[in-house]
């Protein structure tokens, strides 16, 4: 579990163990568990954890929200909690109070873009929107044509979409926004490209993926300790040990990367205060870890893990999905590489170091 002393994460942990256990969910013959889980999430206000106090929320810290995302990953949680957190956060940053109910956000890929104007409403075609079809609200972040990002609240019955499914089997859709009229519109604080939603979304997906990788370490080491072949647990074979060591190292890198970008989730004073390095690096490195880690986990669990009956796919399939959300490794690498190459060569290393940490806040004189 993520480090304790954190009420939100402790509460979520209890709820997930009771109502979202991967084994139970995997064996469920109907979707009834979803409603029960979601009702509990709303009742405990976990869905409003990242909404500002002025908008009726809990205003949890960036570290708590990152820990919550990590916990969602550890359970391969397949309800739109992270999406609802992001939606609530964006709305409250624009001074809007989020309505009750599950929400999702768009665009959720680095390629897609939406625009908004008072006269024409929203415009754009946006693919890969997570959980669309399973939520009450959609929050769209769009360019307003005046150099600002606006956040638009749209009820889920106000538009049409092509239902798809993710590799993990979660609802997903391609959405045509042209002419859609939001119920409310607010202006977001200035954020450096690629924008408030992409940065926060990538950071939280990295957190979920890090959590899922930690779960892979647990599932795989437990299996290697139990599964007997050639007269001993397969975990006693050096070939397996070295593979699992690599998985553990990749999971450790992923957890480190995700936690190290949590600070960027706090709003900065100006766009330049939040460099893209920590988030870009997290999404890139965690994506790489996901590819390696999922491969090792499947190889270790053999045919057993390649069945619907085993919970392994709940983690590996979502890891593969999440790599593409809010920017893939290659997309972020191109952004980050261009950024790092745009300065003098002698400034490369100082930039790598200095952008890793929050900017210095001069303490007020006593």
């Amino acid at each position, binding site marked *: 579990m993520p480090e304790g002393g954190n009420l939100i994460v402790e509460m979520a942990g209890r709820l997930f163990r009771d109502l979202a256990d991967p084994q139970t969910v995997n064996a469920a013959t109907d979707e009834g568990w979803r409603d029960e889980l979601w009702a509990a999430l709303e009742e405990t206000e976990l869905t409003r954890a990242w909404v500002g106090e002025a908008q009726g929320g809990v205003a949890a810290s960036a570290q708590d929200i990152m820990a919550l995302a990590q916990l969602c990953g550890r359970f391969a949680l397949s309800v739109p909690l992270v999406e609802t957190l992001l939606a609530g956060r964006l709305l409250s940053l624009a001074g809007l109070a989020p309505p009750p109910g599950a929400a999702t956000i768009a665009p959720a890929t680095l390629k897609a873009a939406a625009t908004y104007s008072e006269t024409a409403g929203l415009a754009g075609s946006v693919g890969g929107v997570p959980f669309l079809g399973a939520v009450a609200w959609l929050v769209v972040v769009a360019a307003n044509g005046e150099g600002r990002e606006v956040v638009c609240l749209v009820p889920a019955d106000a538009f049409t979409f092509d239902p798809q499914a993710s590799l993990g089997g979660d609802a997903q859709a391609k959405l045509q926004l042209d002419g859609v009229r939001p119920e409310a519109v607010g202006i977001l604080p200035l954020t450096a490209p690629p924008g408030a939603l992409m940065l926060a979304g990538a950071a939280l997906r990295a957190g979920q993926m890090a959590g899922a990788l930690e779960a892979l370490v647990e599932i795989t080491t437990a299996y290697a300790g139990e599964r007997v072949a050639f007269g001993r647990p397969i975990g006693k074979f050096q070939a397996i040990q070295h593979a699992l*060591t690599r998985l553990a190292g990749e999971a*450790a*890198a992923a957890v480190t990367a995700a936690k*190290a970008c949590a600070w960027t989730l706090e709003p900065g004073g100006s766009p330049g205060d939040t460099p893209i390095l920590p988030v*870009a690096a997290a999404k890139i*490195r965690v994506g*790489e870890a996901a590819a390696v880690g999922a491969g090792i986990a499947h190889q270790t669990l053999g045919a057993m893990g390649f069945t619907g009956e085993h919970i392994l796919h709940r983690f590996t399939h979502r890891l593969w999905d999440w790599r593409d959300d809010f920017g893939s490794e290659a997309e972020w690498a191109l952004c980050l590489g261009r950024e*790092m190459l745009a300065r003098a*060569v002698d400034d490369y290393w100082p930039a790598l170091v200095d952008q890793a940490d929050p900017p210095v806040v001069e303490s007020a004189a006593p």
Partner: protein
Amino acid sequence: MSTALVFEPAPASAATREVRAEVRAFLAKETPGGAFGPQHGAGTSRYDPDFSRRMGERGWIGMTWPKKYGGHERSHLERYAVLEECFVANAPLWFHFIADRQSGPVLLKYAAEPIKENLLPRIARGELCFCIGMSEPDSGSDLFAAKASAVRTNDGWRLNGRKLWTSHAHQADYMIGVFRTSPRTDVDRRFGLSQFLIDMGSPGITTRPVLHPNGGHEFNEVTFDDVELPTKNLLGEVDMASAQLTSELAFERSGPERFLETYGVLRELVALAAENPDARAAEAVGRLSAQLHVLRQMSLSVAARLEAGEEPLLEAAVVKEVGTVWEQALPAVARDVAALIEASDAARESFETALRATTLIAPKLTIQGGTIEILRGIIARGIGLR
């Protein structure tokens, strides 16, 4: 159920930023003379007693040690910043670095008071060079196969045997060496080794160069022929060195030198790509930057735990495992990316120099200080597989 690995972010501090800025300014002044610099690639000019003295004057050796012994009582995170800047600049640290990293902490923990009072302040001033006598002809990864012996005499110990692949033994004033004081037992194969402080000027010590394939002199064979040591030069408990060695490794395995030895080739790749960045090169630099950033955060996380007085052996092993695999692959990755970049002859030449230097040292990176196979064994035990 839970994995034993803990990587919490290290706190950023004003003190760390300050010392980092000081080191950058210092290195900028040292570099124009051309004695060293990242453009020289890895493995050159690694040893310079005068440079070490200047580091000592600024208080950048023995930074975390008690003031009583010439240290500066600064944090492991400040020390981390100093080291990192030095490694990136390819500064010649190796006269003092082994003593700063390993030998000093061992002496602090296990040496008799007069030895500490004598040697530690001199190390901190950058006046002493140490080497580590662990490997032998028939004992590399299997440290507990060591045969070189120490036998009790009336007034101390008598050493015989050979140490091999000993870095900087030909330049060192002292060695901290591991010698067999008792046979190992059936119950405990780690039993019977002891650690000693050895003056490299003692009669009976012969040092012979063992050159790198490119002719570089770092390794040595050190022969001990009836070398007499005073009793007080035993460090810690007799026959129980294995436990002492284990805790030494948390310091040795997790530092920035475990992923920055080939940094020179990344710097030159950046210089090459920056002239005319195409998508392939930019994407590659982005990935490498992300990987390096995360390695830094992992290593910093371990430094923060050392600062808290912990011994995160498992996490230190993970940092070295992930870090050395990365730095070892870096020259090959950079070579591949550089191949299709349109660049000036000058940038190309500079890159090739760094590429050659780093390609040649790459094989040793997953061998020195615990082979990758040994580290994976340690991690496997840590996550409950052994």
